[in-house]
């Protein structure tokens, strides 16, 4: 049976309902929440602060350290074992590299900026939600940034290219692909591009076009959330 209508009745190019809030963690130097459908990401930024162990220090510029963590009760059915896993290590690294191009840490030699991304509830698209929340949290922390980063997953289910997959769509029994994309919305550069599955060249080009469009929608939400925190009453 072909995939002719999305499980949750959305349009092909429509994201799940999005909510964003900045400054959700009072003790952090910067923080943000990003919710897309049933996926919730919380990001907290600490620093720039002293970095230990000392051999990690870079005298040229500060370093960025990301930590991605799915909470035990967050997933679909199975409990996620707490603590790091092979998957969370990879995602931490991937998120770090997608955020680094917009940051300028040369003002903070030997220091570290820690980003903690926690996912209390997940329904696919966690790395994208994490990146989007982390970008807002970094801006909230007053760091020097060229641009924000917005991210969304584009996928293919059967022969349809669609935006922001849910877990059910990711688990579809048939030809499928899942492509998380992170972009700098103003300069239109891609900072993260991964793919799982199979897709044709033509479809991939279409997917990237869609990603660009959706990222600028997400950017508007990020912008609004950031301004909301600092606006004059």
């Amino acid at each position, binding site marked *: 049976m072909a995939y002719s209508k999305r499980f949750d009745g959305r349009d092909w190019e429509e994201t799940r309902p999005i909510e964003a809030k900045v400054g959700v963690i009072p003790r952090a*130097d910067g923080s943000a929440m990003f919710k897309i459908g049933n996926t919730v990401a919380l990001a907290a930024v600490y*620093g720039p602060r002293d970095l230990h162990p000392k051999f990690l220090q870079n005298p040229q510029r500060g370093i960025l350290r990301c930590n991605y963590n799915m909470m035990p009760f967050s997933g679909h059915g199975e409990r996620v074992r707490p603590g790091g896993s092979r998957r969370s290590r990879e995602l931490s690294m991937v998120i770090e590299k997608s955020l680094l191009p*917009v940051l300028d840490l040369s003002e*903070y030699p030997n220091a570290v900026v820690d980003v903690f991304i926690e996912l209390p509830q997940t329904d696919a698209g966690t790395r994208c939600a994490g990146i989007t929340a982390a970008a807002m949290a970094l*801006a909230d922390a*007053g760091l020097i*940034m*060229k*641009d924000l980063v917005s991210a969304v997953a584009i996928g293919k289910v059967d022969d349809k290219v669609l935006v922001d997959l849910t877990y059910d769509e990711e688990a579809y029994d048939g030809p499928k692909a899942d492509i998380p994309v992170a972009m700098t919305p103003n300069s239109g550069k891609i900072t993260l591009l991964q793919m799982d599955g199979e897709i044709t060249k033509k479809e991939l080009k279409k997917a990237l076009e869609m990603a660009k469009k959706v990222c600028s929608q997400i950017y508007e939400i990020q912008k609004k959330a950031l301004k909301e925190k*600092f606006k004059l009453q």
Partner: protein
Amino acid sequence: MSDSLKIKDRDIVVPGETLAVGMGYLPGRGTYRDGDKLLAGMLGMVSVEGKVVKLISLSGKYIPKFNDRVIGTVIDVLMTGWRLDIGSAYSAVLNLKDATSEFIERGSDLTKIFDLGDNLMTQITNVTSQKLVDVTMKGPGLRKLRGGRIIEVNPHKVPRIIGKEGSMVSMIKQATGCNILVGQNGRVWLEGEADKEVIAVNAIRKIEEEAHHAGLTDRMKVYLEKVSGVKIMDKGEQQNGVQ
């Protein structure tokens, strides 16, 4: 001719937002140029001064600057001085010779002068490119802070807490009778009667919250007169002899 501002003065902007188009505008602090566009390089409030567009930062940690007066806490006792936490990514070193003019015998116990946990009002004398910070205690008003309490505020709001020529902080002093010292690193030391200290802390928190509103001084005056019951006099009135 095609130069145009895309935002208004005192707007809040996010990183990457276009501030102005055209070469007629010059990039100030926190902004950068990309082609003929002027973009925001951080989250902040826009300040347009003639042709220069700059950003005033609203959040983030304290970055040590030369000549800043900061309140530090002793976190380590070294061979010839003390290491202080100044609420930033980098700690500061207070050398023995910058701490006291008394004669200290070689090998004597430095904790007799300043011990771990002591709070000191200091001034930054040097910041290297590697962000090694030196501070001194030689200067007017630089001393060990005994008693009172220390609160932490957003370091970017400190100029508002001090006010123009110290107007805001002297208003709070007048209303509460507290001694107040404000460090550029966002630490504020207060000492006075317990209930008056609370009034002062609440006032400072209120300033921090409303830091970017216009006419804050006047509103704080009304607020302070209400909560403390003390009539606050302007500088001019004070000089006219009404004590």
